[in-house]
């Protein structure tokens, strides 16, 4: 038990607070659930309280809310075009959820829900299935032309179509793995260096400096990974809507 406590991976353990079972499905309220709720409450509070004044000239918090709105709106416009507007609430929620999960996870003793592959994969598969569905509904059979590169000899197509298909099918995997691996690696590294601080006693000041630097890096990674996940979602959406290759 004590060895387990000191393991850098102990921070990722799921702890059940309340055992809940819905029709045979384990829906226990865990530390992960708690931090997901904290995440959505924090997002909601930040975006609604800051906009309470609805000021013509925004204050600091209102600027933050407007900035994040315009950041995602511009991202969607640039990558998908005007047809992307419909998906704005979803993409915005996705970005904010990942960003806040990543950021809140950097608070000591908190839990990073996005450091679990099942969570990132859950989001990635929703994006993947949603995008595929949108493509099929919009273009019916023509959607399959996404896997056929134009201007390529028929012989090469035998080789290229399976490659395109595989690359399409690995999208959710790469999307999920990228976020999960970044979050887990960063947190593990911080924990390992934290262990060094304790183990080295007086000389622990050196790994402490390293932790400060790493923490700054992790803040960037937290934002960057949320950004990457969202941009890739936009690009996939663009592929499904416009089919150009």
């Amino acid at each position, binding site marked *: 038990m004590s060895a387990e406590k000191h393991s850098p*991976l102990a921070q990722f353990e799921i702890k059940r607070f309340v055992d809940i079972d819905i029709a045979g499905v384990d829906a*226990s309220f865990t530390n992960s659930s708690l931090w997901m709720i904290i995440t*959505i409450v924090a997002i*909601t509070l930040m975006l609604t309280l800051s906009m309470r004044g609805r000021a013509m000239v925004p204050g600091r918090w209102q600027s933050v809310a*407007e900035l994040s*709105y315009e950041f995602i709106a511009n991202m969607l416009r640039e990558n998908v075009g005007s047809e992307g507007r419909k998906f704005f609430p979803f993409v915005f929620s996705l970005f904010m*959820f990942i960003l806040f999960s990543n950021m809140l996870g950097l608070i000591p003793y908190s839990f990073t829900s996005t*450091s679990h592959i099942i969570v990132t994969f859950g989001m990635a598969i929703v994006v993947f299935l949603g995008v595929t569905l949108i493509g099929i509904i919009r273009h019916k059979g023509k959607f399959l032309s996404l896997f056929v590169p134009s201007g390529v000899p028929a012989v090469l197509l035998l080789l290229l179509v399976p490659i395109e298909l595989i690359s399409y099918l690995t999208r959710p995997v790469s999307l999920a793995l990228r976020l999960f691996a970044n979050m*887990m690696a960063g947190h593990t590294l911080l924990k390992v260096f934290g262990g060094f601080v304790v183990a080295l006693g007086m000389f622990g000041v050196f790994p402490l400096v390293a932790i400060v630097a790493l923490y700054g890096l992790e803040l960037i990674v937290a934002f960057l990974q949320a950004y990457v996940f969202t941009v890739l979602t936009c690009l996939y959406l663009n592929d499904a809507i416009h089919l150009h290759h």
Partner: protein
Amino acid sequence: MPQLIIADFSPQLVWLVISFVALFFVMSKVALPRIGEVLEARQERVTSDLEKAESLRGEADDAIKAYETALAEARASAHNTAQAARDEMNTKAEAKRGEVEAKLAGQLAEADARIAAAREEAVGHIRTVASDTAKTVASRLIGVDLDDAAIEAAVAGSMTEGN
């Protein structure tokens, strides 16, 4: 690795769905429309302010143009008025001068006539005085009463001679 414990997958997925769906609804129904509204209102305000500024500038331009035309008109009318006044003064002065000159000429002629009359008279007197004197002188000196006609003829002759 705690991430690979299959038993923990289902509660995480269930709560991911619950929290994400909740977030999505709050975002799409409350938070985002509110932010969009404010941004739109600001955009509208900026556009309308710009339009207002543009129209105000047009009005200012018009006002300047009107002012300039008014100024030019005023200047022209002032010039005209001054010219008219000057002309009027000139004609008036001319008329006055003519009048004065005529009056002066009349007076001059009158004076001339008077002088001529006076001279005539004086000349007449001289003649009588001369003939009287001549008569008296003649009667005193030589005791002869001379004929008036002869004296007068002699006086007239000497006066024309003297002249």
